[in-house]
């Protein structure tokens, strides 16, 4: 209504003044915007990398269909699992509401590229072939019958190309032999999962084959226990009962807790989370310095004029609004092209690292808010000089 009646608020005038000031010197405006674009790209990329790390690290956990998960408390992450006695998993069946339990074995081993002979590290999942439905992965259901056979392996077609042209070899020659941790196995099919920061490729084998690859491991020691409940049963109740039933060293986790646990490892225990967070802070700091410099120079160059406006009756609050408006304009001017650039950069990086990088709405909002805070801090720092400007100066 304010605009319709022709009466406009001081916010409108402050914003308009800020816009006119920035727009008047276009080269300077573009330079300042580049500062924000730079910060925007840095923040987006760091958040993107961190998110890709978490997404890939928890890929298996998010993929698995289970209501509760059992792990030894000393297991730090999927690639550093400590087995727990299988009997504890079967004891879970005694709890009312538990429908089924599945023992999952996981470890890493060297895969020899069938063409080049170069070894790459792969995550190998061992499972009872009849329970393979806990992984609703594309292609896996079609291949599960083959998994019943001895010494066969299913290959993740989303693995890095360094693993060799597995799909092409399968298509051209049918089943073909590969070497995994020195054991000869036959590749009989593929599925689609995706790689993680800890492994460049994934394989699924039946439990007997798993122990052939890892002779030091025992079927009595389960790496992850997956528990499915009868439809509609209360997860929290069963979780509490299991905690009472099982020894203290067995963690009973819901799916959300299991995912959070894996994330916490990468974020808190490894330096990777810290490195990405530090990258975000550095990006924001660089942007803060650039925006502060632009705003500060604008204020310094017009200090006498602003002092004149103060002498005419303008108050400090008006100038705070002007500087905050200028900061907001810079955020928009930097964020929009920054977002577009990152859209391209994300797909470029995705093609290089083979890990999904999505420029989601949440990431966009988070980055925008961080940039807004960055620019507002710059504005608050810069406006101190303006507040100190005395109208008396115009009489000196």
């Amino acid at each position: 209504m304010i605009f319709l009646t022709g009466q406009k608020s001081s916010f409108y005038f402050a914003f308009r003044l800020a816009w006119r000031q920035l727009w008047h010197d276009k080269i300077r405006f573009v330079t300042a915007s580049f500062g924000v674009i730079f910060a925007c790209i840095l923040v987006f990329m760091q958040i993107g990398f961190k998110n890709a790390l978490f997404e890939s690290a928890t890929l298996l956990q998010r993929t698995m269909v289970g209501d509760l998960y059992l792990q030894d408390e000393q297991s730090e992450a999927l690639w550093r699992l400590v087995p727990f006695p299988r009997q504890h998993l079967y004891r879970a069946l005694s709890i009312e509401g538990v429908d089924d339990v599945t023992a999952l074995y996981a470890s890493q081993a060297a895969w020899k590229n069938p063409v080049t002979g170069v070894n790459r590290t792969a995550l190998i999942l061992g499972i009872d072939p009849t329970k393979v439905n806990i992984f609703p992965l594309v292609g896996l259901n079609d291949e599960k019958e083959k998994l019943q056979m001895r010494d066969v392996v299913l290959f993740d077609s989303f693995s890095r190309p360094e693993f060799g042209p597995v799909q092409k070899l399968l298509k051209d020659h049918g089943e073909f032999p590969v070497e995994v941790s020195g054991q000869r196995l036959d590749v009989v099919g593929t599925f689609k999962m995706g790689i993680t920061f800890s492994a460049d490729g994934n394989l699924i084998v039946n439990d007997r084959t798993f122990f052939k690859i890892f002779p030091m491991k025992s079927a009595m020691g389960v790496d992850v226990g997956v528990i499915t409940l009868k439809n509609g049963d209360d997860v929290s109740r069963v979780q509490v009962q299991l905690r009472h039933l099982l020894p203290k060293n067995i963690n009973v986790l819901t799916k959300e807790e299991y995912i959070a646990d894996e994330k916490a490892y990468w974020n808190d225990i490894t330096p990777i989370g810290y490195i990405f967070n530090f990258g975000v802070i550095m990006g924001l700091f660089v942007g803060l310095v650039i925006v502060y410099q632009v705003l500060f120079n604008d204020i310094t160059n017009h200090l006498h004029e602003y002092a004149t406006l103060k002498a005419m009756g303008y108050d400090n609050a008006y100038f705070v609004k002007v500087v905050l408006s200028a900061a907001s304009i810079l955020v928009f001017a930097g964020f929009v092209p920054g977002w577009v650039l990152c859209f391209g950069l994300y797909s470029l990086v995705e093609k290089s690292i083979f890990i999904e990088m999505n420029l989601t709405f949440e990431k966009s909002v988070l980055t925008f808010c961080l940039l807004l805070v960055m620019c507002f801090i710059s504005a608050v720092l810069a406006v101190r000089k303006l507040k100190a400007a005395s109208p008396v100066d115009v009489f000196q």
Partner: protein
Amino acid sequence: MIKNDPSYLIRASNLIYDYGTGDLTQSVLKGANLEVCSGEFVILAGPSGSGKSTLLSLIGALRKIQGGELSIVGCDLRDADDIVMRKIRRQVGYVFQQHNLLGFLTALQNVEMTLEMFSDYSERERHDLAVQTLQSVGLRRQMDSYSSQLSVGQKQRVAIARSLVHQPKVILADEPTASLDSKTGLQVVEILHGMVKNTGCGALIVTHDHRIFEYADRILNIEDGVVTS
């Protein structure tokens, strides 16, 4: 105690102002007395360091008074807080030695800035009043020019238009002709004089420029912090 007489726009009585403290105290105003009535064009002259600018800044509510009494447009400034001081400033039209126009605004936008402080104008009214005022100072054709495109004299006239557009009750000018050639300087003074005579506001002009003394209704001298007729 100053009596609240509406015909007096400026009344200063026994004004005292010191800079510094202790042994470094320097008294600039030592009991200055001054009155400016409605429709009066008063010139204040005096040598450098006599206290002219300090007196002007006190009258313009830019500083708080330290001693004596001061009333502007009927408002006692002795115990005025920041809000009152700002209200007073909005009733005063300042013309400074330097034009201090915002270089990124056009002449028209600079003049409109004054009116944007007041919520009682619509966008159209603001525009029309600013155009009208620029016309009265002979700058109708230059209203869309930036200050970099204007001569020094034109800039000073824009600054005057900015000071007068809201029809202030008091005009304060500090050496308004100092940076102008004689012809433009006289034009500027004529504009200020005309405004005083046409609207009934009061003007206090600080100047050394003897050429404009003939426009004055009264000429006051200030020397060593004391005002004399």
